[in-house]
């Protein structure tokens, strides 16, 4: 049974077709990267799979349950793009604690189980010491890790991340890679939108490449042992958007 099974996904935003028949699956313990250039529909695919945007056509099931009947939200941890979240002066702890809501009853205080899960999530992303700092004081990498901790607080089986590396310096990117590698080892299924593979490359089991709302590749990203450097050439002068995925998407349009 797949954890995420989406077939024939069609989504229009403001009347514009954005996804035109996307198939996407994530299996148990699998790490899938959703790649593609800017505007290719990666975020929309994630949002459709999570039921955040309505679809015109297509089937989606999560953990074997059709999306419309799906209620086991505690099994999913969603990490939106960190630029989009406005937290005011809430602390890391408060943000992460809000990740427990799928488990909490109304009008009840946090249980010891809740508190343990929050502490574990903070430890997982190495933010225990900063737990009571306001989010507004954090660097981009710390904010991103806090959002991951919020998603982990529910103890999910699937974590879904939207461009977690965007805007981070290399040190933060490497820290984040360590975090995700630990999650992979812990057996979580991971669905991650990436603009470029970067340091995540070694842990990706499968890549799904989107171009203009269509899947143009679904499979392993490299054949082991076949990597050569024959055609190596430098790209110092390339614009920043020139990345693995963007390059592929551009080549594919020829």
């Amino acid at each position, binding site marked *: 049974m797949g954890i995420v099974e989406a077939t024939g996904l069609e989504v229009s935003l403001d009347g514009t077709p954005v996804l035109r028949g996307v198939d996407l699956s994530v299996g148990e313990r699998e790490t899938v990267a959703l790649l593609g250039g800017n505007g290719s529909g990666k975020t929309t695919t994630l949002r459709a799979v999570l039921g955040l945007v309505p679809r015109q056509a297509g089937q989606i099931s999560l953990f074997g349950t059709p999306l419309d009947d799906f209620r086991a939200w505690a099994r999913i941890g969603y990490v939106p793009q960190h630029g989009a979240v406005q937290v005011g002066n*809430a*602390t890391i702890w408060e943000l992460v604690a809000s990740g427990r809501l799928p488990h909490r009853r109304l009008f009840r205080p946090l249980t010891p189980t809740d508190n343990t899960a929050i502490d574990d999530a903070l430890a997982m992303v190495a933010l225990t010491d900063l737990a009571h700092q306001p989010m507004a004081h954090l*660097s981009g990498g710390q904010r991103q890790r806090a959002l991951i901790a919020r998603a982990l607080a529910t103890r999910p089986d699937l974590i879904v991340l939207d461009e977690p590396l965007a805007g981070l310096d290399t040190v933060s990117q490497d820290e984040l890679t360590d975090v995700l590698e630990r999650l992979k080892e812990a057996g979580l299924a991971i669905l991650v939108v990436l603009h470029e593979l970067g340091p995540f*490359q070694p842990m990706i089991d499968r890549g799904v490449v989107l171009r203009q709302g269509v899947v143009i590749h679904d499979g392993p990203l490299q054949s082991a042992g076949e990597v050569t*450097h024959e*055609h190596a050439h430098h790209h*110092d002068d390339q614009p*920043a958007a020139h990345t693995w995925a963007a390059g*592929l998407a551009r080549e594919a349009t020829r």
Partner: protein
Amino acid sequence: MTLADLFSFGFMQRALIAALISGLLCPAVGAYIVQRRLSLLGDGLGHVAIAGVGLAMLTGTAPMPVAIVICLVGALAIELLRQRGHATADVGLAILFYGGISVGLLLAGLAGQGAGTLSQYLFGSLITVTTGDIGLIIGLAVVVLVVGIGLSPQLFSVCVDEDYARTQGLPVRLLNLMIVAMAAITVTLSMRTVGLLLVSALMVVPVAAAQNLAGSFRATIGIAMAIGVVVGGGGTLISAAADTPSGPTIVVSAIVLFALAAGISAIQRRRHPKVSDVVEPTIHHVVAEVTDHAGSAAPAVLHDDHVDYLFGGHRHAPHGDHYDEH
């Protein structure tokens, strides 16, 4: 006559109770409104309530209950429109502002009462709080506080990140409706003390002041409510002693506390700079490029056994350019 003498009158006691409750309630609800960046919503709702007051004058009924009903209806309508994306929040609020106040003035005029009578509801008038009002104020305040504080984890999640809250299985629409409903009730309950044109200030200013002092959302609500009670009570006393209109007195007191809080915060910031590691966004990352033998990369090359990866190509690019807007 001393202040103590003054407060031996029933109407002054009622005024003080009403002001203290407004001081407690407005920032508690305002914290969510501010977090959701809807600071002007309270103002718009105040204007809608004016229409309710006008209607009450025309029909000769008690203003507060009518205004509460009208304001609730207006608030829920606006929120439903927002949720369906029919009107932008901006245009919706503008219609609230001008429609509400115009209809209110129109109806008051039709009732033979000018802007003068209406103004006691616009800027607050201590002597007008009736016994019936006090019952309504206490009853509804309890409801709003129980919901606003009891459901604060859920409301917080919705205000911080609506999409995320949805992926938690929370009833986001219902919680959003509850927030605007609480705001509508709070605004209208405060019309006798702070006034409908100024009530929004009591929702926003104590929260803004508390944000300067508090290091967490929870502390922000707590400190804001404390500030609200202090300026509500203090403003009422000053207003009674100096014979000034209560609403402006309360709001000016709040702004004075805000200025103090901002000053304290500025001094603290100078002593303890922020903790975040200030790393220059200089990125050295690996660009892997895929081409097939012919040099034209088709998707099929990924299935090919001879995939060429280029590692290297270190770039130094500020990474602001990778953000997508949604």
